[in-house]
């Protein structure tokens, strides 16, 4: 199969065949991570720039690890929005870095659509590492890879995503990805954080948490943030933990062999009860490893090296 995409901006632009191909490529490349010296020359001479306009250590390190294993050169550009506000526009930054020979931009930005804008103007490859509330395609792909590995399939699974769905790019891309691969997605959490009446994302909205968890194959809790645009979306973290936090009792509603997932970093004691920290159903650290594999796959597919 030929991979015809120049950018990875959004899961919605990928077909189920594209996704399967990415997951296969990632699964193959994952072997490299287990070698004593995990380094291959695939992308030697390529320059990857990580533009992070929003603090995110984990995603950035994951991309950096992936690029370095493939022997690409790496630029790390971390900017607080405030320093960018001082005059240098996103466009300036990108064009300057491009002039230094960047082949691919990995971009994390607080504004939805910023990576799309770069893709339009830069003339290089672009990977969206998370834009505003909009999309986080690499997270969705690593989640799909994790579930696929553990369950053997994605079709027909019941996936429950719990937490702030409305303001979560992880949820937006996750719902889209799981649905494309034939899973059913249920979402629950405080109703102030669920998709609004008019913004159906294709997930079934449950106002009772139990409904979403009942018989689930996958339970994914999202990191919560109490305040959005200066307004509290739920009364207290205490109430959140009591009403919407996942604990052993609630997890027991799901299938016995369910997978417990979280995009990290976890607020233990809020969205997940500390009693689940070493639970065998948790695949949270596998998600981290698979993140590196998926990002390696995307770099290879976009930069045309041979896998």
């Amino acid at each position, binding site marked *: 199969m030929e991979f015809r995409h120049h950018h990875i901006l959004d899961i919605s632009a990928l077909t189920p065949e594209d996704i399967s191909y990415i997951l296969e490529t990632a699964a193959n490349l994952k072997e490299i991570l287990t070698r004593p010296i995990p380094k291959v020359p695939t992308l030697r001479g390529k320059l990857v720039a990580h533009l992070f306009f929003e603090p995110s250590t984990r995603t950035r390190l994951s991309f950096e690890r992936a690029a370095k294993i493939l022997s690409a050169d790496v630029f790390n550009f971390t900017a607080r929005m405030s320093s960018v506000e001082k005059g240098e526009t996103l*466009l300036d930054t990108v064009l300057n870095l491009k002039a230094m020979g960047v082949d691919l931009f990995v971009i994390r930005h607080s504004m*939805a659509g910023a990576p*799309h804008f770069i893709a339009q103007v830069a003339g290089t490859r672009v990977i969206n590492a998370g834009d505003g509330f*909009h*999309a986080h395609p690499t997270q969705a792909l690593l989640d799909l890879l994790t579930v696929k590995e553990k369950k053997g399939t994605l079709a027909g699974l019941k996936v429950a995503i719990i937490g702030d769905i409305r303001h979560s790019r992880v949820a937006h891309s996750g719902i889209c990805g799981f649905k494309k691969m034939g899973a059913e997605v249920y979402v629950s959490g405080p109703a102030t954080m669920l998709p609004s009446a*008019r*913004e159906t994302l294709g997930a079934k909205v449950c106002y009772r948490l139990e409904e979403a968890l009942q018989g689930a194959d996958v339970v994914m809790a999202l990191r919560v943030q109490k305040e959005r*645009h200066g307004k509290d979306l739920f009364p207290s973290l205490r109430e959140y933990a009591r009403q919407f936090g996942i604990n052993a009792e609630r997890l027991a509603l799901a299938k016995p062999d369910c997978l417990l997932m979280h995009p990290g970093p976890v607020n233990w004691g809020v969205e997940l009860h500390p009693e689940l920290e070493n639970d065998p159903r948790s695949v949270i650290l596998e998600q981290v490893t698979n993140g590196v594999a998926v990002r390696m796959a995307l770099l290879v597919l976009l930069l045309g090296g041979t896998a």
Partner: protein
Amino acid sequence: MKILLKGGLVIDPSQGLEAALDLLIEEGRIKALGKDLPGEGARILSCHGLIVAPGFIDMHVHFREPGEEWKETIATGSLAAVAGGFTAVACMPNTRPPNDNAEVTRYILKKAKEANLCHVYPVACITKGQKGESLTEFGDLKEAGAVAVSDDGRPVPEAALMRLALEYAKNFDLPVISHAEDLSLARGGHVNEGLASAKLGLRGIPVEGEAIAIFREIMLAELTRTPVHIAHVSSKLGVELIRWAKEKGLPVTAETAPHYFTLTEEATLGYHTNAKVNPPLRSEADRQAVEEAIAEGVIDVIATDHAPHSPLEKFCEFERAAFGLVGLETALPLGLNLVRRGVISLSRLVELFSCAPARILKVPGGTLKEGARADVTVFDREATWLVSEETLHSKSKNSPFLGWEMRGQAVYTIVAGRLVYQRGKA
């Protein structure tokens, strides 16, 4: 100077007229309307196959001067207006500084006089600095030449203050124009709440915010018995409320813009910043409701909300991009699409573009009666042209219609008896 418009189809709803007639203009006024008028000493403009209408008035434009001259000036905006077939515009007060005192009003009029193309009617602020705190000097502003008041760009935040504005406007017979938006619901939003906000991952602006604000203005029109004009209606709910107010006999009028009956929120998908506008482009059901409201007369006026922005404000991240689009030069062909789709008649279109805004703003125009000031728009219903950065006269090119083929074009624009624009000669 005499001008004879020969052989056009004259459409003047103010006289219930739709006939092939000649129109003679002399000393800035309509001298005569009739068959085979003699043309001695007159400049003769052939209008065969063309429509001759009372001059179009765009009661909602942003000309950016003073303060943001890199986007548009009164001169470039006036040129875009006459190229679009408009003989008059009302410019909104959200300039820098805002038009909240007579000095700014006079400055705008001075610049308009220098540009010397179309009539420019300043709309003054309702509140000082558009801060929503205290009323501007309506009397002084009117004496300086303001024709209406509005805080457009922002709503008047409190009902009590809007009530005072409506009451005080009565002393000066100043129309009050409302930018109807509930800011607490709209704040932080970039596109319509629904398909667009869900697909783009952006905060949405719900139609209910517009409806709540329109309902407030209707209640205040009832309370004060003062006319209120609702700017840029974009939603089905908004239309329904205005229909209800009119059925109750309340003095409420309304306008919409061509983009609300032409486009939907789909135009924003892909983060197209030229389709970012406030109120946002809505759903197909909203678009249809706006179209029906135009046909029924619930919406009185088509205004463009011409809002120029340079690439500095538009060629950037969607969330950072400014709201607004240029509309003066695409309004006529988009309006003609309504006629072609069978929604309205040609004479109703002329009413929407000319008679109704003249009546609401209480300015001259909207008629070709003998003795009236000779503001005349002559257009070709069929001429096709391509919207491009080159064909637009406005200083800014932020049109969501770039690349569209338009059908319908102004051929002669005559302002106070003077031919200020001729197709192909700008």
